[in-house]
Structure formats: C-alpha cells, structure tokens
C-alpha cells in the first residue's frame, strides 16, 4: 500500500498547487528552517482525518489554510490528496488505487472524498482502520510523539499496542 503521490493546494505555506511523487525506499526532505518541511508531515496527517487543531500546531483548524504573505492575498480553502497504490488489496476496495482527499473552506466545513466520490469522515476512518494508517496511528513521528512513546502517562502508549493488535 505504497504512497505514490501527495498533492497540496492552499495548505499552510503551500499556496500553489504542489505535487510530490514518492518512490520505494527512503526519501529525505531537506531545506532551511521555516521553508515548509514539517507542513508536509502535517498535510499527510490532516488528509488521514486528523481532527485536533493542536496536532496541526494551530489554535483553530482553519489556520491550515494559506493565510497570505506580504505580497499574496490569503486563500479561501486548503486541499490535500494522497494517492496510494492498492495492488496488494490491503484496503478493502475493488480499485487498485486509493485517492484520499480532504478540503476545508475558510467559512467552515470539511469535505472528504475517496477516489473522487464524496464521503464522510466515518467512511475514511473505517477504511483505514486496519492498515496502521489511522490519524492517531504511529506513522508520523516527531519530538512530541517520541515523548508520547516514553511518557509516564502510559495510556497513550497503550493505545499504540491496541492499534497493533
């Protein structure tokens, strides 16, 4: 169930339509401080259904929408899509590709779609349930997640074992 393509448009600092093609193995993402690397990790977590604004380092979820710069006006929406290879059939759908997309508008409301057909968050969550890719799963790791894995409040660690069971 390989991640083939990530597309961002209006998500955080990615004002323009931007496409990342991913391949097998190890892909490094490099660049100077503040250039937008962690925003890519946020975009993946968001497209997988993340509901907490704090996990996007924001106070409100609408802060994921491009807020403008000294020379550009803010946008009114943010959109991210993830294209997976489903040849292995790991996701229980007939298609050999899974195109998962999420869109949010400044005045509120989130839209989800699976293979370009509108659906609800619940549909996304139940589809991803056994793949290890749920929004809270252990597939995006940064400093706060390291602390969670080791934290004394062990109930967060417990949920990782449940996810793996």
């Amino acid at each position: 169930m390989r991640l083939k393509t990530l597309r961002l448009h209006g998500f955080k600092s990615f004002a323009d339509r931007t496409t990342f093609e991913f391949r097998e193995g190890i892909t490094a993402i490099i660049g100077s401080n503040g250039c937008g690397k962690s925003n890519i990790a946020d975009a993946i977590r968001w497209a997988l259904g993340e509901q907490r604004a704090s996990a996007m380092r924001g106070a409100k979820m609408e802060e994921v929408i491009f807020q403008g710069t000294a020379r550009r006006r803010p946008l009114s929406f943010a959109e991210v899509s993830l294209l997976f290879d489903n040849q292995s059939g790991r996701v229980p759908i007939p298609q050999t590709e899974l195109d998962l997309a999420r869109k949010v508008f400044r005045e509120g409301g989130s839209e989800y779609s699976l293979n370009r057909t509108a659906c609800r968050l619940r549909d996304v969550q139940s589809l991803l349930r056994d793949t290890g890719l749920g929004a809270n799963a252990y597939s995006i790791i940064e400093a706060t997640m390291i602390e969670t894995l080791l934290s004394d409040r062990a109930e967060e660690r417990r949920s990782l074992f449940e996810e793996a069971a």
Partner: protein
Amino acid sequence: AREVFEATFDAVRSNFTRTFQSLFQGGECDIRLADPNDPLESAVEIQASPLGKRTQRIHLLSGGERTLTALALLFALYLVKPSPFCVLDEVDAPLDESNVGRFIRLLYDFKHETQFVVITHNPQTMESADWVYGVTMEEPGVSSIVGVELLGARDVPLPTAPSGA
C-alpha cells in the same frame, strides 16, 4: 480480545529486545503490564538500561538515549504490524554521529516493508536516502519543491561531478 492483546504484547516485547540491542549495541530493556490481571486496561511500563548501566526508569536517560529507546519501541511495533509508510521529522537531531549511523541502518533493515519519508538537517542522513526532495521559499512565505535527486543504487559510485557543478 484478551488473547489477541496478550499475544501482540508478547510479540512486541521480544521484538523490543532485538531492536533495542541493535540500536544500543547491547544493554537490556523490557516492557511490562503494570497490572497483568487486567491486560485490556493496564498501563504499559518501559524499562531500559544501556550497556553497563543499572536498569532505570526511562526519565533518567539522556536526550539521545530516550530517542533511541522510543525508536526501538516503534520498530518493535512495526515488526508486529508494519505501517505502509512512516514520516520521521528530525528524529535524528538529538543523536551523535555513531547513533545516527545505527538509526540509518535500522531504516535499511525495514525499508522493504515500509516506505520512509525522513525530514532532516543531518548530512549523514541525507546521504543515505534513496531520493532527496528539496523544499524552498524562493518567494518569501510560499513553499515550493526545488527538485528531486536520485541518489540511486548504493553500490554504484556516484560519478564525481566536474568541479564547479
């Protein structure tokens, strides 16, 4: 449900010893259920002691040792239930040079099952990736991709660029 959880827990526990010893080149570690009589609710406790040190609570470990312990646990979970892909955001920052090497070797061991996207400032990690994406803000405040470099098959020496390239 109880049997499934206990079986998963035991599998992660024995994997944890393997991944921990490969990252720490020895030492001892363990995970235990705080309340073994109630596996479905019990917290999970971690103990870790690098080579020659007394077994201790994990909060006395150093910054780098904590990161390595968390990574060992993460990969022990992956051995039980592989995640199709994994994003690691600057997890190599607290590590010294030789531990960055061991971290990279662990990625190599897992890269056939899991696709890795590694965000890093560390030249050692950059050089060991299969692909490198650069992100930039040529226009202030707006992120874009600079280009993908195929570091290619490890065993083929990279042609030395003509100086000044």
